[in-house]
């Protein structure tokens, strides 16, 4: 979390005052860009900034060229950069190492010598935004010609670290409109949103984090009912943490008059798993839908292909969250969940239709099933596979293990 650092607090106020005080649109954009660059450099360091500048330049120039081949090359470079910085150790440790540990170690040594100590800050978000931009331009969209606009789209500080993942076709018009005049209503709303985000993050999520981390390795020692409470706490921890962060980001942008896409819409009120993904991390799920699932064929090539496409897209979504098997398992779990949710009335025939009719009458059962499915999934998200399964078993163990 970068927004709850004192540096940010101290830097933000003078920036906002200057931003609001500057009378011209261009002046506001320049001030905003300077602050974004200072913010990015402060938190990412030179080693984290340079790769992003290179990727941004490549994306900008490829987009300007409108050459489909060049754009495809640009997309490839962005994806390769993400793989290079984020997934090389995963490949050496958990893919090659799982088959041949000795070879895995050798690869790790090689990778250690070429990789920085940590991947560039928010490389996943940058890559997703650049890929989106290039893909849309390749499809015929108008590229961003103004370098100032592109730079701001690339390193816009509120969404830089953890999204929401922006769409340039929404962001640029919003930016152009915002810098024209101060929007007091947006500013006030943004301030309220920032406060609510900090409340969610610092007062609720951080406490749930301390609590769930403390009980994580004592899970088998706590009473069975408290294990279920732990599961609920875990599900709210990630929701409040992430949605709090998104609220701060969206609120900060709103304080400058800029609209960012919303990321959460009461996800735990979802009545099926598809509905959940329309409400959870919306900017990521729509990105995966638009740039992975649909290009793969979506649901246009029969049931088996639909299931495979969904599973692959969600496995990728899991891998995007972190370079470990448990994230992939979490993604697959949701991919399978969505497939079951969509296809069971067709696959089970009349029985499936009866189940569907029954569930449509009792929304509470639908809600409970969805919430439990999602909550069990968080075990996979937070813990290694074996530990997650062990915890899942313990939820249904009435008593204490011997």
């Amino acid at each position, binding site marked *: 979390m970068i927004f709850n*650092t*004192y*540096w940010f*607090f*101290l830097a933000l106020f003078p920036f906002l005052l200057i931003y609001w005080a500057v009378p011209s649109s261009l002046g506001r954009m320049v001030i905003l860009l300077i602050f974004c660059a200072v913010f990015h450099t402060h938190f990412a360091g030179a080693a984290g900034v340079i790769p992003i500048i290179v990727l941004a330049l490549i994306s900008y120039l490829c987009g300007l060229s409108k050459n489909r081949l060049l754009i495809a090359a640009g997309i490839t470079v962005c994806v390769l950069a993400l793989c290079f910085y984020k997934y090389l150790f995963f490949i050496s440790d958990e893919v090659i190492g799982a088959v041949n540990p000795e070879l895995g170690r050798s690869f790790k040594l090689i990778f250690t010598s070429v990789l920085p100590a940590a991947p560039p800050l928010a490389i996943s978000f940058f890559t997703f935004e650049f890929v989106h931009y290039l893909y849309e331009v390749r499809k015929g969209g108008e590229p961003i010609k103004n370098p100032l606009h592109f730079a701001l789209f690339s390193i816009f500080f509120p969404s830089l670290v953890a999204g929401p993942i922006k769409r340039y076709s929404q962001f640029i018009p919003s930016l152009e409109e915002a810098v024209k005049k101060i929007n*007091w*209503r947006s*500013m*006030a*709303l943004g*301030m*309220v949103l920032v406060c609510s985000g900090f409340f969610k993050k610092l*007062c609720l999520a951080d*406490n*749930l984090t*301390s*609590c769930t981390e*403390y009980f994580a390795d004592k899970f088998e020692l706590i009473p069975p009912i408290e294990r279920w409470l732990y599961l609920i706490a875990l599900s709210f921890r990630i929701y409040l943490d992430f949605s709090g962060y998104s609220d701060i980001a969206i609120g900060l942008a709103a304080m400058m008059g800029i609209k960012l896409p919303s990321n959460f819409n*009461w996800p735990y*009120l979802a009545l099926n798993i598809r509905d959940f993904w329309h409400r959870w991390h919306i900017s990521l799920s729509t990105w995966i839908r638009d740039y992975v699932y649909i290009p793969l064929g979506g649901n246009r090539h029969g049931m088996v292909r639909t299931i495979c496409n969904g599973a692959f897209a969600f496995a990728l979504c899991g891998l995007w969250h972190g370079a470990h098997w448990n994230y992939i398992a979490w993604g697959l779990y949701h991919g399978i969940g969505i497939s079951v949710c969509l296809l069971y009335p067709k696959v089970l025939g009349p029985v499936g239709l009866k189940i569907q009719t029954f569930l449509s009458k009792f929304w509470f059962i639908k809600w409970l099933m969805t919430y439990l499915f999602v909550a069990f999934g968080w075990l996979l998200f937070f813990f290694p596979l074996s530990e997650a399964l062990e915890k899942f078993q313990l939820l249904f163990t009435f008593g204490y293990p011997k």
Partner: protein
Amino acid sequence: MKMKAYLENLRQWALENLEPKLVMVGVVVGFLLCVALGHYFARQNLYVNYHRLHPYISMDTQFLPTFSNLYELVKSRIVPGKTLVIVGGDSVFNGQGQTVDKLWSDQLQKDLGDKYSVVNISFRGGRVFEGAYWIYEALSKEKHDVIFVANAFGAVIGIPCGNTPYRYMYWDGHYKGFLRDFKAREDFIKFNSTLLLDQFQKPLDELYLCMQIDNYLRFRDLWNVVSYRLFSSIWTEGTAKDCLVPRILFEDKIPLSDTTNVRDSDQSLWLNTVRKYSQPYYQTVNGKLLPNHYGWREFDLLCDCAVMPDLRSNTLVVSTGVCPFYFDKLNSLEQERHNMVLDRAFGQYVRKGYNTLIINNLETDDFIDAVHLTPAGGYKVASQVAAKIREIKEKQQNNNQK
């Protein structure tokens, strides 16, 4: 669902009816009001019925007393015509193992009688000249009659700007202007900061910023009042289900330990702790102990810059030693090393102008483990410390008469 609809309606109502400029003004006024309250509470004594910094009002449960909190607490104990005795040091002087009704520092008050006022602000895990010493230094600006007492183990002293986790208090006092100018200490801090690796420097920079901002906004003082009197906001293992309960309602529940603990406690852990006190200062070469010049040079330097020269004559460093049960378990060379370190370190303290007291008549039954004292052990210490304090006072009076 109803809740969601209600919140949506509320949002809609706010959008339609609230005047954004007024909201902004409200936020600014509210913020300034909080700052004013923070400044007000920074000048009040927070604690009620105070005996010591027990776990519920200290770092153990994430309640971090501010410099102002302790300064005002100590100031509230100043009575004209009485000598104020500030007790510092670590868990030994904090009274670990003694219930609040059998606390050694309360016994010290009884032993010293009406002419003295004792206040114990030692921390568990604190060093000799941390926390309490800085309060003593701050008070010395106002020329009160104060004696500072702290316990020490051999040559363990810590760096003068504070060690983890109490470093925050030094910088709190520094940026709020409580501490006096002390060139030797400032030179040491400057030199020490050049040795820090980047990964340690970043959190320190955040700490400095926090304390500088807090000097103006006093949010830590305000929040401590809220946590102490209204509601707490942090979940910790110690407060657990009562994490929202205001700290004022928590009783000092440090348990009374009996002497059987000496044998029951983790002996290897304690033996290693005892060994660590003397290890850095002598090395064994061919069965003989040779002084480690680097370790002693550092001790010498720290003695010079921990306490201001004019405050040393009113500073009493006490050694309560090690439980004989554990001391006997050391081999002869380790025992010799232990004694040599104690003699040399305390000799050095005397040469630098400090007062010292080595208590070596404690028996195994006076300890609950290798270093912490039972109430009986605490009472023995109290009587000897009281005698020494009187001696210091008499010496001062004689000097004044001359």
